[in-house]
C-alpha cells in the first residue's frame, strides 16, 4: 500500500534511544567490571595506559561507547525538558542532538588520548 510516510516527532529519536540502550546495556557491564577490578590497589596512569595505548579494540570500544552514551543522554534530557519545562519542537530536538554529538565528541577525544 502506498501511503505518504511522515513520521510523528519523537519516533526516530526513540529508536535511537533504544538502539543505544541495547549497546549501552553491554558496554556498561564491561565498564562496571573494569571499574571495580581496576580500582583494586588504587588507580595509576601507567596501569590505565597499559590497557589502552595502541589497543585498537579498546579505542573502538570507547569511541562507540562515547557516541552511544552521548546520544542516549541527550535524548533523555530532551524528554525530561519536554515534560518538566515544556521545551518542545524541532529546534529543541536539533539543539539536543548537537548537545549529544558534542558530548560524544569530548568522549571520543578522551578515547583517542588514551590510545595515542
Amino acid at each position, binding site marked *: *500500500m502506498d*501511503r505518504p*510516510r511522515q513520521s*510523528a516527532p519523537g*519516533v526516530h529519536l526513540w529508536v535511537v534511544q533504544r538502539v543505544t540502550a541495547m549497546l549501552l546495556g553491554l558496554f556498561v557491564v564491561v565498564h562496571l567490571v573494569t571499574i571495580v577490578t581496576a580500582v583494586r590497589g588504587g588507580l595509576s596512569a601507567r596501569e590505565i595506559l597499559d590497557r589502552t595505548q595502541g589497543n585498537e579494540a579498546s579505542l573502538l570500544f570507547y569511541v562507540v561507547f562515547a557516541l552511544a552514551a552521548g546520544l542516549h543522554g541527550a535524548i533523555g534530557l530532551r524528554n525530561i525538558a519536554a515534560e518538566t519545562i515544556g521545551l*518542545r519542537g524541532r529546534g529543541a530536538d536539533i539543539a539536543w542532538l548537537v548537545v549529544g554529538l558534542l558530548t560524544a565528541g569530548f568522549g571520543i577525544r578522551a578515547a583517542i588520548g588514551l590510545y595515542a
Partner: protein
Amino acid sequence: MAEPASLKVSVWRGGADGALQHYEVPARTNQTVLDVVTHIQRELDPSLAYRFACRVGMCGSCAMTVNGRARWTCRTHVKRVVGADGELELRPLANLPVIRDLAADLTPFFDKWQRARGTFQPKDAPDGAVPADFAVVPPASKARREADAGIECIGCAVCYASCDVVAWNADYLGPAAMNRAWTLVNDVRDGARGERLDAVAGDAGCHSCHSTQSCTERCPKNLDPSSAIAGLKRTLFWDTLLGRR
C-alpha cells in the same frame, strides 16, 4: 479494626477553582463509595453533581478520585479505602476538566480514542458493508489472545486520570486509547493497521510512555494498558526497522 460509627467525608464542590466541603455520613457494612455519594446527594445536599449509571462495574461512568487514587466508586468498598478515623476524600477524576463537583468532562478522553483510530475497520469491506462470510479467528492464536487481554475496557478513564504523562503532555493519547488501538492491531479482521500505528506513534503516543505502570496498577478491570503500549512500541520498532511500514 473497629469501624467508626460515621464517616468524615470531604467532597470537592464547584469547578476547577472549587473547594472541599465536609459531610458526616453514617457508616454501614458493605457500603460502597458510590453509596456514600448517593447518601450525601439524597439526604444532605441535593445540589451535589456526580455521575453513575449501572452500579455494577459495567458502564464506567462513576470513577472519581478517592483518597488520592482514581477508582470506580460503585465497586469500591468504603472499608477498603477509608482512613483510620473514617476520613474519605472525594474529588473528580484528575487530568480532565471539571464540570462541577464530582463530574469530570470526559470529552478529551474520548476524543483521543478517535485520534488513536479506536474504531474497527473491516478488512473485507472498507466501505463499511457487511462481509459476505464469517471470519475464522482461532481463539488460541497469539494475536487473538493479545486482543482478548485488553478487550474488556469499560472506558472509565481511571487509567487516564492516573497517568503522569497525560498530566505532562496534553496531547498524549493516554493508556485507554492505546490499549484499544493495540486490541485492533491484533485483530486479524481489521484493515487499518498501518494508519493506526501511525496514529499512535511519536511523542503524543506510545513513545512517551515511561512504564510507570500506574494505568496497570489502577485499572479496575485488571487490564494491562502498560503492556499494550509496550506492544505498540515493539511493533512499530520492528515494522520500521524491517521496512514493513
